[in-house]
Protein backbone atom coordinates (compact mmCIF):
# COMPACT_ATOMS: atom_id res chain seq x y z
CA UNK A 1 0.00 0.00 0.00
CA UNK A 2 1.59 3.25 -1.11
CA UNK A 3 1.11 6.63 0.46
CA UNK A 4 -1.16 7.65 -2.43
CA UNK A 5 -3.63 4.88 -1.56
CA UNK A 6 -3.43 5.96 2.05
CA UNK A 7 -4.17 9.55 0.95
CA UNK A 8 -7.25 8.43 -0.99
CA UNK A 9 -8.39 6.62 2.14
CA UNK A 10 -7.84 9.72 4.24
CA UNK A 11 -9.80 11.82 1.74
CA UNK A 12 -12.73 9.41 1.75
CA UNK A 13 -12.62 9.26 5.55
CA UNK A 14 -12.65 13.07 5.75
CA UNK A 15 -15.61 13.25 3.39
CA UNK A 16 -17.48 10.62 5.39
CA UNK A 17 -16.71 12.47 8.61
CA UNK A 18 -18.17 15.57 6.97
CA UNK A 19 -21.59 13.88 7.06
CA UNK A 20 -22.43 15.32 10.53
CA UNK A 21 -21.69 18.81 9.22
CA UNK A 22 -23.90 18.13 6.19
CA UNK A 23 -26.59 16.85 8.58
CA UNK A 24 -26.40 20.16 10.44
CA UNK A 25 -26.71 21.98 7.12
CA UNK A 26 -29.78 19.95 6.15
CA UNK A 27 -31.58 19.72 9.51
CA UNK A 28 -30.09 22.54 11.57
CA UNK A 29 -32.90 24.05 13.62
CA UNK A 30 -31.58 27.60 13.27
CA UNK A 31 -29.76 29.44 10.51
CA UNK A 32 -26.66 29.73 12.67
CA UNK A 33 -26.32 25.95 12.83
CA UNK A 34 -26.27 25.87 9.05
CA UNK A 35 -23.59 28.55 9.00
CA UNK A 36 -21.47 26.56 11.48
CA UNK A 37 -21.78 23.46 9.28
CA UNK A 38 -20.86 25.46 6.18
CA UNK A 39 -17.85 26.90 7.98
CA UNK A 40 -16.69 23.41 8.95
CA UNK A 41 -17.00 22.18 5.35
CA UNK A 42 -15.02 25.23 4.24
CA UNK A 43 -12.15 24.52 6.62
CA UNK A 44 -11.98 20.90 5.54
CA UNK A 45 -11.92 21.95 1.88
CA UNK A 46 -8.43 23.31 2.47
CA UNK A 47 -7.27 19.94 3.76
CA UNK A 48 -8.96 18.06 0.92
CA UNK A 49 -7.24 20.26 -1.67
CA UNK A 50 -3.86 19.36 -0.14
CA UNK A 51 -4.86 15.69 -0.15
CA UNK A 52 -5.92 15.81 -3.82
CA UNK A 53 -2.56 17.42 -4.58
CA UNK A 54 -0.75 14.56 -2.83
CA UNK A 55 -2.82 11.98 -4.73
CA UNK A 56 -1.97 13.60 -8.07
CA UNK A 57 1.67 14.00 -6.98
CA UNK A 58 1.60 17.74 -7.74
CA UNK A 59 1.37 19.34 -4.34
CA UNK A 60 3.32 22.40 -5.47
CA UNK A 61 0.45 23.24 -7.82
CA UNK A 62 -2.46 22.58 -5.48
CA UNK A 63 -0.85 24.23 -2.46
CA UNK A 64 -1.45 27.68 -3.93
CA UNK A 65 -5.16 27.52 -3.84
CA UNK A 66 -5.26 25.72 -0.54
CA UNK A 67 -3.40 28.81 0.69
CA UNK A 68 -5.99 31.04 -1.00
CA UNK A 69 -8.76 29.18 0.79
CA UNK A 70 -6.99 29.48 4.12
CA UNK A 71 -6.60 33.23 3.59
CA UNK A 72 -10.06 34.07 2.34
CA UNK A 73 -12.27 31.46 3.96
CA UNK A 74 -13.48 33.63 6.82
CA UNK A 75 -14.82 36.45 4.65
CA UNK A 76 -18.28 34.88 4.48
CA UNK A 77 -18.41 34.21 8.22
CA UNK A 78 -17.37 37.76 9.06
CA UNK A 79 -19.91 39.16 6.59
CA UNK A 80 -22.66 37.09 8.23
CA UNK A 81 -21.53 38.29 11.66
CA UNK A 82 -21.57 41.91 10.50
CA UNK A 83 -25.04 41.41 9.02
CA UNK A 84 -26.43 40.05 12.26
CA UNK A 85 -24.72 42.80 14.27
CA UNK A 86 -26.78 45.32 12.29
CA UNK A 87 -30.00 43.40 11.79
CA UNK A 88 -30.02 40.72 14.47
CA UNK A 89 -33.24 39.89 16.31
CA UNK A 90 -31.85 41.08 19.63
CA UNK A 91 -32.05 44.55 18.18
CA UNK A 92 -28.91 46.20 19.48
CA UNK A 93 -29.41 49.89 18.83
CA UNK A 94 -26.59 51.20 16.72
CA UNK A 95 -25.62 54.57 15.45
CA UNK A 96 -26.13 53.17 11.99
CA UNK A 97 -29.87 52.71 12.48
CA UNK A 98 -30.16 56.46 12.10
CA UNK A 99 -28.38 56.07 8.78
CA UNK A 100 -31.02 53.52 7.85
CA UNK A 101 -33.73 56.09 8.33
CA UNK A 102 -31.74 58.51 6.18
CA UNK A 103 -31.59 55.77 3.58
CA UNK A 104 -35.31 55.17 3.62
CA UNK A 105 -36.01 58.87 3.33
CA UNK A 106 -33.74 59.36 0.36
Amino acid at each position, binding site marked *: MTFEHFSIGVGVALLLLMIPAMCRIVMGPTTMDRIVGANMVGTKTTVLLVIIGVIFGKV*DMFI*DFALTYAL*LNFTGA*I*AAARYLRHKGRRGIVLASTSEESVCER*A
Partner: protein
Amino acid sequence: MQKLFATIAVIITGAILLNAVEDFPRFGDPHSPPNSGVSGGSVSSSVHYLQNTYLDTRVPNVVTAVLADYRGYDTLFETAVILTAGIAVFAILRVVRRKDEEESTGSEEKACSGEFSTSDSDGEGRHRVVVGTACRVVVPLAQLFGFYIIAHGHPSPGGGFQGGVVLGTSFILLALAGGLGSALGRLREDMYLRLACLGVFIYAGIGLLSLFFRRNFLDYGALSGLLQTGGEEMARSHGIFGVELGVAMTVTSVMFALFANLSTRGELKGGL
Protein backbone atom coordinates in the same frame (compact mmCIF):
# COMPACT_ATOMS: atom_id res chain seq x y z
CA MET B 1 -50.04 26.34 -9.68
CA GLN B 2 -47.13 28.45 -10.81
CA LYS B 3 -44.75 26.06 -9.13
CA LEU B 4 -46.37 23.08 -10.85
CA PHE B 5 -45.80 24.62 -14.28
CA ALA B 6 -42.23 25.51 -13.32
CA THR B 7 -41.56 21.94 -12.19
CA ILE B 8 -42.98 20.50 -15.40
CA ALA B 9 -40.88 22.88 -17.50
CA VAL B 10 -37.75 22.00 -15.55
CA ILE B 11 -38.39 18.26 -15.90
CA ILE B 12 -38.97 18.52 -19.66
CA THR B 13 -35.83 20.64 -20.13
CA GLY B 14 -33.81 18.21 -18.04
CA ALA B 15 -35.09 15.26 -20.08
CA ILE B 16 -34.13 16.98 -23.34
CA LEU B 17 -30.67 17.82 -21.99
CA LEU B 18 -30.15 14.26 -20.74
CA ASN B 19 -31.24 13.00 -24.15
CA ALA B 20 -28.59 15.21 -25.75
CA VAL B 21 -25.85 13.52 -23.69
CA GLU B 22 -26.01 10.66 -26.22
CA ASP B 23 -24.73 12.98 -28.95
CA PHE B 24 -21.54 13.89 -27.10
CA PRO B 25 -18.31 12.41 -28.47
CA ARG B 26 -16.96 9.52 -26.41
CA PHE B 27 -13.83 9.96 -24.32
CA GLY B 28 -10.81 9.76 -26.62
CA ASP B 29 -12.88 9.77 -29.82
CA PRO B 30 -10.43 10.66 -32.64
CA HIS B 31 -13.15 12.39 -34.69
CA SER B 32 -14.43 14.67 -31.96
CA PRO B 33 -13.88 18.41 -32.51
CA PRO B 34 -11.06 18.85 -29.97
CA ASN B 35 -9.16 15.93 -31.47
CA SER B 36 -9.73 16.48 -35.17
CA GLY B 37 -6.91 18.92 -35.73
CA VAL B 38 -6.02 22.57 -36.22
CA SER B 39 -7.22 23.89 -39.58
CA GLY B 40 -7.18 20.52 -41.27
CA GLY B 41 -3.79 19.50 -39.88
CA SER B 42 -3.00 15.96 -38.93
CA VAL B 43 -2.15 16.61 -35.27
CA SER B 44 -5.11 17.00 -32.96
CA SER B 45 -5.61 20.52 -31.62
CA SER B 46 -5.03 19.71 -27.95
CA VAL B 47 -1.78 17.94 -28.79
CA HIS B 48 -0.84 20.84 -31.07
CA TYR B 49 -1.26 23.38 -28.28
CA LEU B 50 0.46 21.19 -25.71
CA GLN B 51 3.47 20.76 -28.01
CA ASN B 52 3.76 24.29 -29.35
CA THR B 53 2.78 26.55 -26.45
CA TYR B 54 6.17 26.56 -24.80
CA LEU B 55 7.95 26.98 -28.15
CA ASP B 56 5.70 29.88 -29.16
CA THR B 57 5.43 31.82 -25.92
CA ARG B 58 7.92 30.46 -23.35
CA VAL B 59 5.03 30.10 -20.90
CA PRO B 60 4.97 26.72 -19.13
CA ASN B 61 1.30 26.96 -18.09
CA VAL B 62 -0.67 26.16 -21.23
CA VAL B 63 -3.93 27.54 -19.86
CA THR B 64 -2.48 31.01 -19.29
CA ALA B 65 -0.97 31.09 -22.77
CA VAL B 66 -4.17 29.92 -24.44
CA LEU B 67 -6.30 32.42 -22.50
CA ALA B 68 -4.13 35.47 -22.95
CA ASP B 69 -2.46 34.85 -26.29
CA TYR B 70 -4.17 32.34 -28.57
CA ARG B 71 -7.59 33.44 -27.36
CA GLY B 72 -6.71 37.05 -26.62
CA TYR B 73 -9.84 38.57 -28.14
CA ASP B 74 -12.02 36.41 -25.92
CA THR B 75 -10.23 37.47 -22.73
CA LEU B 76 -10.23 41.12 -23.80
CA PHE B 77 -13.99 41.14 -24.13
CA GLU B 78 -14.42 39.12 -20.94
CA THR B 79 -12.57 41.91 -19.17
CA ALA B 80 -14.81 44.41 -20.92
CA VAL B 81 -17.84 42.44 -19.68
CA ILE B 82 -16.57 42.70 -16.10
CA LEU B 83 -16.07 46.44 -16.54
CA THR B 84 -19.57 46.72 -17.98
CA ALA B 85 -21.01 44.87 -14.98
CA GLY B 86 -19.26 47.29 -12.63
CA ILE B 87 -20.47 50.30 -14.58
CA ALA B 88 -24.03 48.93 -14.66
CA VAL B 89 -24.14 48.45 -10.89
CA PHE B 90 -22.62 51.91 -10.45
CA ALA B 91 -25.14 53.49 -12.80
CA ILE B 92 -28.15 51.78 -11.23
CA LEU B 93 -27.29 52.09 -7.56
CA ARG B 94 -25.01 55.05 -6.96
CA VAL B 95 -26.69 57.99 -5.29
CA VAL B 96 -24.86 61.31 -5.40
CA ARG B 97 -26.15 63.87 -2.96
CA ARG B 98 -26.09 67.62 -3.34
CA LYS B 99 -23.70 69.61 -1.18
CA ASP B 100 -26.25 70.92 1.34
CA GLU B 101 -27.66 67.49 2.03
CA GLU B 102 -24.11 66.26 2.39
CA GLU B 103 -23.50 68.62 5.29
CA SER B 104 -26.45 67.38 7.29
CA THR B 105 -24.95 63.91 7.39
CA GLY B 106 -21.37 65.12 7.45
CA SER B 107 -20.56 63.50 10.78
CA GLU B 108 -19.50 60.38 8.93
CA GLU B 109 -16.65 62.14 7.23
CA LYS B 110 -14.08 61.42 9.85
CA ALA B 111 -14.43 57.71 9.17
CA CYS B 112 -13.18 58.30 5.66
CA SER B 113 -9.79 59.58 6.76
CA GLY B 114 -8.08 56.36 5.74
CA GLU B 115 -7.00 55.39 9.23
CA PHE B 116 -7.40 51.68 9.88
CA SER B 117 -9.08 51.99 13.21
CA THR B 118 -10.99 49.42 15.17
CA SER B 119 -13.25 52.10 16.59
CA ASP B 120 -15.04 54.10 13.94
CA SER B 121 -18.15 56.19 13.94
CA ASP B 122 -20.46 53.25 14.64
CA GLY B 123 -19.50 53.39 18.28
CA GLU B 124 -19.07 49.64 18.44
CA GLY B 125 -15.32 49.53 18.52
CA ARG B 126 -15.03 46.92 21.20
CA HIS B 127 -16.91 44.44 19.04
CA ARG B 128 -14.43 44.86 16.27
CA VAL B 129 -11.27 44.13 18.24
CA VAL B 130 -10.98 40.44 17.34
CA VAL B 131 -11.96 40.79 13.70
CA GLY B 132 -9.93 43.98 13.30
CA THR B 133 -6.77 42.43 14.70
CA ALA B 134 -7.12 39.33 12.53
CA CYS B 135 -7.72 41.43 9.44
CA ARG B 136 -4.72 43.60 10.24
CA VAL B 137 -2.61 40.42 9.98
CA VAL B 138 -4.40 38.83 7.04
CA VAL B 139 -5.07 41.76 4.71
CA PRO B 140 -1.44 42.71 3.88
CA LEU B 141 -0.53 39.07 3.39
CA ALA B 142 -3.58 38.54 1.19
CA GLN B 143 -2.56 41.49 -0.97
CA LEU B 144 1.00 40.19 -1.21
CA PHE B 145 -0.36 36.78 -2.16
CA GLY B 146 -2.60 38.38 -4.76
CA PHE B 147 0.41 39.98 -6.42
CA TYR B 148 2.19 36.62 -6.22
CA ILE B 149 -0.72 34.96 -8.03
CA ILE B 150 -0.72 37.61 -10.76
CA ALA B 151 3.02 37.38 -11.29
CA HIS B 152 3.09 33.59 -10.99
CA GLY B 153 0.45 32.97 -13.63
CA HIS B 154 3.12 31.88 -16.09
CA PRO B 155 4.54 28.77 -14.40
CA SER B 156 1.59 27.75 -12.18
CA PRO B 157 -2.20 28.14 -12.11
CA GLY B 158 -3.32 31.67 -11.47
CA GLY B 159 -3.14 34.90 -13.35
CA GLY B 160 -4.89 38.19 -13.64
CA PHE B 161 -8.44 37.22 -12.79
CA GLN B 162 -7.64 35.13 -9.74
CA GLY B 163 -5.10 37.59 -8.38
CA GLY B 164 -7.48 40.45 -8.96
CA VAL B 165 -10.23 38.66 -7.07
CA VAL B 166 -7.88 38.04 -4.14
CA LEU B 167 -6.89 41.72 -4.11
CA GLY B 168 -10.52 42.80 -4.28
CA THR B 169 -11.41 40.44 -1.44
CA SER B 170 -8.65 41.96 0.67
CA PHE B 171 -10.29 45.37 0.30
CA ILE B 172 -13.68 43.83 1.15
CA LEU B 173 -12.12 42.32 4.29
CA LEU B 174 -10.81 45.78 5.17
CA ALA B 175 -14.33 47.16 4.75
CA LEU B 176 -15.83 44.37 6.89
CA ALA B 177 -13.29 44.85 9.66
CA GLY B 178 -12.91 48.60 9.93
CA GLY B 179 -16.01 49.98 8.26
CA LEU B 180 -16.45 50.91 4.63
CA GLY B 181 -14.90 54.32 5.24
CA SER B 182 -11.60 52.76 6.21
CA ALA B 183 -11.46 50.80 2.96
CA LEU B 184 -12.62 53.76 0.87
CA GLY B 185 -9.82 55.78 2.43
CA ARG B 186 -7.35 53.32 0.96
CA LEU B 187 -9.01 52.98 -2.44
CA ARG B 188 -11.10 56.06 -3.11
CA GLU B 189 -14.04 56.02 -5.47
CA ASP B 190 -12.42 58.08 -8.23
CA MET B 191 -9.34 55.87 -7.83
CA TYR B 192 -11.15 52.58 -8.40
CA LEU B 193 -13.21 53.88 -11.28
CA ARG B 194 -10.02 55.08 -12.97
CA LEU B 195 -8.25 51.80 -12.25
CA ALA B 196 -11.11 49.77 -13.73
CA CYS B 197 -11.01 51.72 -16.97
CA LEU B 198 -7.20 51.77 -16.99
CA GLY B 199 -7.10 47.97 -16.88
CA VAL B 200 -9.12 47.55 -20.05
CA PHE B 201 -7.15 50.42 -21.58
CA ILE B 202 -3.84 48.64 -20.87
CA TYR B 203 -5.15 45.42 -22.45
CA ALA B 204 -6.48 47.11 -25.57
CA GLY B 205 -3.45 49.41 -25.67
CA ILE B 206 -1.04 46.49 -25.86
CA GLY B 207 -3.12 45.15 -28.71
CA LEU B 208 -3.07 48.51 -30.48
CA LEU B 209 0.67 48.80 -29.95
CA SER B 210 1.22 45.62 -31.91
CA LEU B 211 -1.07 47.04 -34.58
CA PHE B 212 1.35 49.98 -34.92
CA PHE B 213 4.16 47.55 -35.71
CA ARG B 214 2.25 46.33 -38.78
CA ARG B 215 1.09 43.12 -37.17
CA ASN B 216 -2.29 41.79 -36.12
CA PHE B 217 -4.21 43.15 -33.15
CA LEU B 218 -2.98 41.50 -29.91
CA ASP B 219 -0.02 39.83 -31.64
CA TYR B 220 2.49 40.44 -28.86
CA GLY B 221 5.39 39.09 -30.92
CA ALA B 222 5.51 42.47 -32.65
CA LEU B 223 6.75 44.09 -29.45
CA SER B 224 10.12 42.33 -29.53
CA GLY B 225 11.84 45.36 -31.02
CA LEU B 226 10.29 47.68 -28.44
CA LEU B 227 11.01 45.49 -25.43
CA GLN B 228 14.53 44.49 -26.59
CA THR B 229 13.83 40.86 -25.78
CA GLY B 230 15.84 39.37 -28.60
CA GLY B 231 13.17 36.94 -29.71
CA GLU B 232 9.47 37.05 -30.41
CA GLU B 233 8.80 34.29 -27.88
CA MET B 234 9.97 36.30 -24.88
CA ALA B 235 8.06 39.31 -26.22
CA ARG B 236 4.90 37.16 -26.19
CA SER B 237 5.64 36.16 -22.61
CA HIS B 238 6.03 39.77 -21.52
CA GLY B 239 2.93 40.77 -23.47
CA ILE B 240 0.92 38.13 -21.65
CA PHE B 241 2.18 39.50 -18.34
CA GLY B 242 1.15 43.03 -19.25
CA VAL B 243 -2.28 41.83 -20.24
CA GLU B 244 -2.65 39.97 -16.95
CA LEU B 245 -1.81 43.17 -15.08
CA GLY B 246 -4.60 44.99 -16.92
CA VAL B 247 -7.10 42.23 -16.15
CA ALA B 248 -6.08 42.28 -12.49
CA MET B 249 -6.60 46.06 -12.22
CA THR B 250 -10.08 45.87 -13.69
CA VAL B 251 -11.14 42.87 -11.61
CA THR B 252 -9.81 44.31 -8.33
CA SER B 253 -11.59 47.61 -8.67
CA VAL B 254 -14.82 46.20 -10.08
CA MET B 255 -15.10 43.66 -7.24
CA PHE B 256 -14.60 46.35 -4.63
CA ALA B 257 -17.00 48.69 -6.45
CA LEU B 258 -19.67 45.98 -6.49
CA PHE B 259 -19.34 45.41 -2.76
CA ALA B 260 -19.25 49.11 -1.86
CA ASN B 261 -22.30 49.95 -3.95
CA LEU B 262 -24.35 46.86 -3.07
CA SER B 263 -23.78 46.97 0.70
CA THR B 264 -24.75 50.65 1.02
CA ARG B 265 -27.28 50.91 -1.79
CA GLY B 266 -25.08 53.44 -3.50
CA GLU B 267 -24.63 55.79 -0.56
CA LEU B 268 -21.04 54.70 0.20
CA LYS B 269 -21.72 55.44 3.87
CA GLY B 270 -22.36 53.11 6.76
CA GLY B 271 -23.00 49.78 5.19
CA LEU B 272 -22.19 46.27 6.30
